């Protein structure tokens, strides 16, 4: 490796930036083909009902209509997780939320397709519907699905690491709190779109706005009963993803089937309202936490419960449920830990993975809980956290292996930068500061479906003209994953990153990468690219060294040249070096792949939480609260993020700022609101009424990058796309308390809640707004796992039967 890095760490233009600023980037809806038909889905108008009959006669007869599909045309179920194959492209017997698709039309125009879908007659027999997780707990019948953990529970989890109750009892204080985190959605500016083409040689091509072409590929093969080799999925650049385009979707399967039926290209572009029905966003989550703490702030034990409103389908929900309990242990020392999580089905659009997947909710709870503990103990909340940090290179109670750990440095940065010590509890009424921290995974340690293959693969082709092409299944969703591949390869081979062509997200052309989710791409595809590039360097270096008559380890690759590091004038162009290698060995191509290290945990449920590396963030939020209205404004957020190593610092800062933006929206205004009185219907499926902050709400962001390289990351890099979102909500909540002395224990922190809490406080009641009870849930027998410091080996203890 060159001593002086020429690419890594620099704030270079992204390789796709020019196309994006000129409007040249082709998103899925920008594609058009001769004879293309347009698809419209007919969606359920009932939240929960049996389908009695569907009559498509009139629709099929409308001029311009070429095909009409109903559920029985696509009888095979699918779903992102092998354990939750509970979706159909079009509902067969039953609809489960308003927006669930029941029919699909392909016609010569979007107008004709819409008119035809309106002519499909569906007779429903309504069933009792369920509007919230609490209602689902109470309602065993009718069941929304006939699988799961009984009644309308999709999943019940109970994991105990050491004797948590005994641990909690050792605390000098024991604190118990309840929190609620409202659901929110990704709201990518691009509405999902897909185009399918079927060719007479029995080959299907699907262009789609997806974060996970590999999983779409698998779902298509399964549902359409086609050999995977005859299906090509091309992920078009996503106009924003944030997790909302990570499931295989009904509309993708519907257009594929319609293309097969009609023999013509078929396109669908969802309306904004339909994007709300795709959803897979943040689970509304009710949480209860009890923690024992010593006077010095050290935690003796923690018991955490979560109840997730999953909506109508499984999606990633099993993983989401585990995630609400997994990462509490990677920031502060929790020696004994008990987690119970439940996910319930309700008649709402399905929830799934939104930026931070299952961890922002418990992070909000934990960080506000700690703020209350700090206050109770009379310790500065920053000090409290610094005292209890998980050490680097350690194993947590639930067997997560922490590598590099820069949270202490992050806290120091924001405490210093924000002038914390002069502000906290010292500002005039109405102004306040709050602090919170977080951590996130750099990719999941385990794949979604069980296998022993790499999570990411790269092929590299070195051209005799000096160009290099990287092929990788990863998906560009705006986060810069295409650029990361180019930068890493360019660094290793000493070429200009703009001389590197990047081919991604195409199942015919690129080796599998599992997708752009769980902040895995920089670390995993980056490592795969690094390996492929190093192998290419070795081949090229071997022959270049021969020509220069020096040992290969004396070679340097930089500035488009391969040369003697001890005598830089002696060398050749990179293109010449490739030519020597090609002449000697044939075409110069290499592969690289990446598989995460084995996880330490070996209990059931240990698959969620492990990661090759954890990022860390610390955040201070400043708020202005108007005590007359309860309106909260956030002028500034200071954020420090431990990214391990910036591959491109400008891109890293962009991810940080974007995360703060999305977190601010969740903290103050975003919510998936439903009406449940009449029918369970989405109250506001529009960009006007779902409140995404504008330029006028966005705060100033002061970003500090902490670079604590992690041995598992390429050049030490860890994730940045999701982690910095997590501390925003609790930091704002803690700041509101600092400003006006009331606790808002749920997000979004809307003015009516603040005002209610202020009024309660003025009357001498508890100045708090938030949930007051956690329902009784039939938790299963816990899986008991002895902690590492109790001599545990990561396996569950044998159940002792009396």
């Amino acid at each position: 490796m060159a001593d002086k890095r020429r690419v890594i760490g620099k704030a270079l233009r992204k390789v796709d930036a020019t196309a994006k600023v000129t409007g040249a980037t082709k998103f899925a809806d920008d594609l058009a083909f001769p004879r293309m038909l347009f698809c419209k889905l007919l969606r359920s108008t009932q939240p929960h009902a049996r389908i009695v009959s569907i009559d498509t006669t009139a629709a099929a007869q409308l001029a311009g209509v070429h095909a009409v599909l109903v559920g029985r045309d696509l009888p095979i179920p699918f779903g992102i997780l092998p354990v939750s194959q509970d979706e159909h492209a079009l509902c067969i017997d039953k609809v489960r939320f308003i927006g669930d698709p029941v029919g699909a039309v392909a016609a010569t125009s979007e107008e004709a397709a819409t008119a035809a879908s309106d002519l499909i007659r569906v007779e429903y027999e309504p069933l009792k519907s369920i509007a919230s997780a609490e209602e689902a707990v109470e309602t065993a019948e009718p069941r929304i699905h006939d699988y799961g953990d009984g009644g309308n529970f999709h999943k019940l989890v109970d994991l105990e690491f050491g004797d948590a109750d005994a641990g909690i009892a050792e605390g000098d204080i024991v604190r118990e709190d309840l929190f609620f985190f409202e659901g929110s959605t990704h709201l990518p500016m691009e509405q999902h779109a897909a185009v399918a083409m079927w060719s007479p040689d029995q080959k299907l091509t699907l262009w789609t706005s997806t974060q996970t072409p590999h999983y779409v590929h698998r779902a298509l093969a399964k549902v359409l009963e086609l050999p995977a080799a005859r299906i090509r999925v091309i992920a078009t650049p996503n106009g924003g993803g944030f997790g909302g385009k990570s499931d295989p979707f009904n509309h993708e399967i519907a257009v594929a089937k319609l293309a097969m039926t009609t023999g013509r290209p078929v396109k669908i572009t969802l309306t904004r309202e339909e994007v709300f029905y795709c959803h897979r966003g943040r689970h509304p989550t009710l949480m209860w936490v009890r923690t024992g703490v010593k006077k010095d702030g050290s935690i003796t034990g923690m018991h955490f419960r979560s109840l997730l409103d999953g909506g109508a389908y499984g999606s990633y929900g099993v993983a989401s449920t585990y995630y609400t309990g997994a990462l509490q242990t990677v920031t502060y020392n929790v020696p004994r830990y008990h987690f119970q999580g439940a996910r319930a089905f309700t008649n709402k659009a399905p929830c799934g993975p939104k930026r931070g997947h299952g961890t922002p909710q418990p992070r909000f709870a934990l960080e506000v809980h700690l703020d209350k503990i700090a206050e109770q103990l009379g310790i500065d909340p920053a000090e409290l956290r610094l005292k209890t940090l998980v050490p680097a290179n350690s194993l947590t109670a639930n067997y997560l292996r922490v590598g590099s750990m820069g949270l202490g440095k992050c806290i120091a940065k924001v405490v210093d930068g924000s002038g914390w010590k002069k502000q906290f509890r010292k500002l005039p009424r109405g102004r306040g500061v709050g602090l919170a921290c977080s951590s996130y995974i750099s990719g999941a340690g385990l794949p979604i479906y069980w296998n022993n293959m790499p999570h990411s693969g790269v092929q590299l082709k070195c051209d005799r003209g000096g160009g290099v092409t990287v092929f990788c299944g990863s998906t560009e969703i705006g986060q810069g994953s295409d650029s990361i591949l180019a930068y890493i390869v360019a660094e290793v081979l000493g070429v200009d990153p703009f001389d590197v062509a990047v081919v991604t997200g195409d199942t015919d052309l690129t080796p599998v990468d599992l997708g752009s989710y769980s902040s895995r791409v920089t670390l995993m595809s980056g490592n795969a690219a690094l390996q492929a590039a190093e192998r290419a360097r070795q081949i090229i270096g071997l022959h270049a060294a021969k020509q220069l008559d020096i040992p290969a380890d004396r070679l340097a690759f930089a500035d488009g040249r391969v040369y003697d590091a001890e005598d830089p004038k002696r060398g050749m162009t990179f293109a010449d070096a490739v030519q020597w290698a090609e002449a000697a060995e044939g075409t110069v191509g290499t592969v690289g792949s990446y598989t995460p290290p084995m996880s330490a945990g070996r209990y059931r449920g240990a698959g969620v939480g492990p990661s090759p590396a954890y990022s860390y963030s610390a955040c201070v939020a400043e708020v202005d609260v108007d005590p007359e209205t309860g309106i909260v404004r956030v002028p500034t957020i200071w954020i420090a993020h431990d990214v391990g190593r910036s591959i491109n610092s400008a891109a890293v800062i962009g991810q940080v700022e974007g995360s703060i933006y999305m977190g601010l929206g969740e903290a103050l205004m975003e919510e998936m609101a439903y009406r449940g009185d009449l029918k369970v219907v989405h109250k506001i499926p529009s960009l006007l009424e779902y409140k995404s902050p504008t330029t006028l709400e966005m705060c100033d962001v002061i970003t500090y990058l902490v670079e604590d390289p992690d041995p598992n990351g390429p050049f030490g890099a860890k994730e940045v796309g999701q982690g910095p979102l997590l501390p925003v909500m609790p930091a704002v909540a803690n700041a509101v308390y600092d400003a006006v002395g009331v606790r808002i224990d749920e997000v979004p922190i809307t003015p009516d809640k603040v005002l209610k809490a202020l009024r309660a406080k003025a009357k001498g009641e508890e100045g708090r707004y938030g949930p007051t009870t956690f329902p009784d849930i039939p938790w299963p027998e816990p899986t008991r796992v002895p902690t590492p410091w109790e001599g545990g080996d990561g396996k569950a203890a044998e159940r002792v039967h009396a």
Partner: protein
Amino acid sequence: MLRLPAFRYFQPRTLAEALQMKADAGPNSMFVAGGTDLYPNMKRRHQEPKTVISLMGIPELQTIEAGNVGTCLTLSALSNVPSFQRSYSAVSTAARLVSTPLLRNMGTLGGNLCLDTRCNYYNQSYEWRKSIDFCMKKDGHICWVAPSSPRCWAVSSSDVAPVMVAIGAEYRLVGPQGERVVPAGRFYDNDGINYLTKQSDEILVNVRLPQPNGWDAVYHKLRRRGSFDFPVLGVAAWIQWSGKTVVDARIVLGGVASYPQEVTEAAAALRDMTLGAETIAAAAEAAYRPSKPMDNTDFDLSWRKQMTRVYVARALQELGERAGASSRHRG
């Protein structure tokens, strides 16, 4: 992509031509100005005229002279009329607070004054409304906001209309029967469906603003975000001063009823008083009582009601400060 239903589109150059086209097209036709209210509604199938007649090419509707404002002036233009900054600052403030800069480049004064009433059971796609069996404002029979009510409770969501009512502007209308002038306050009805007294074949041509004559007015808007959002509460406050004494006053609330709601009780609390803290509190309390927002816009409705008190008080405070500042300036 959400698309418009098919229709014919006419672009008359004169008022007479526009009226003739309307007469020829019959009841299944509508006038359009900026289109920022009508076209989204048409895309959601709230209105489905077969003929749309644009008023944007009629020079008479684009003029502005002294206090006479053509209704096809865009809201951007209206918020930037230099002479307005002082005398009619409440008008330009309200215009500037409508939606977004992009929308204000298209939306017009007339469009905002005639803005369709809004309700989040109504401003939804055809498919969404179908799932609740529609509502009485379009295609259905029930007002879901108040199911036992015989009337529709959709909300007046104009920012400029409350100001016009408060300052006592007059609207000039031209129709097949000729011309008439209506005080702004009589242009609106408290009914979500029949919210305008304008006939569908009448054109709102211009607005006559009263001469600046010892009065002052302000507009305060409550909404979630600093742009895009309609008011969940608008407070237009007008005071006729005599020195530091209130001779007359009008407080008009937007976003709480199907019309700009004048709260005469609040005005009564101000008359013949100076704007001290107690007077302001009394007027705010008087405005709070009849303010009855319904659960059909953004935010918790009881919070919205409580905000009436705060926003009326703040509007009056601003008026008081402006009066104080100008009297200091004079003195």
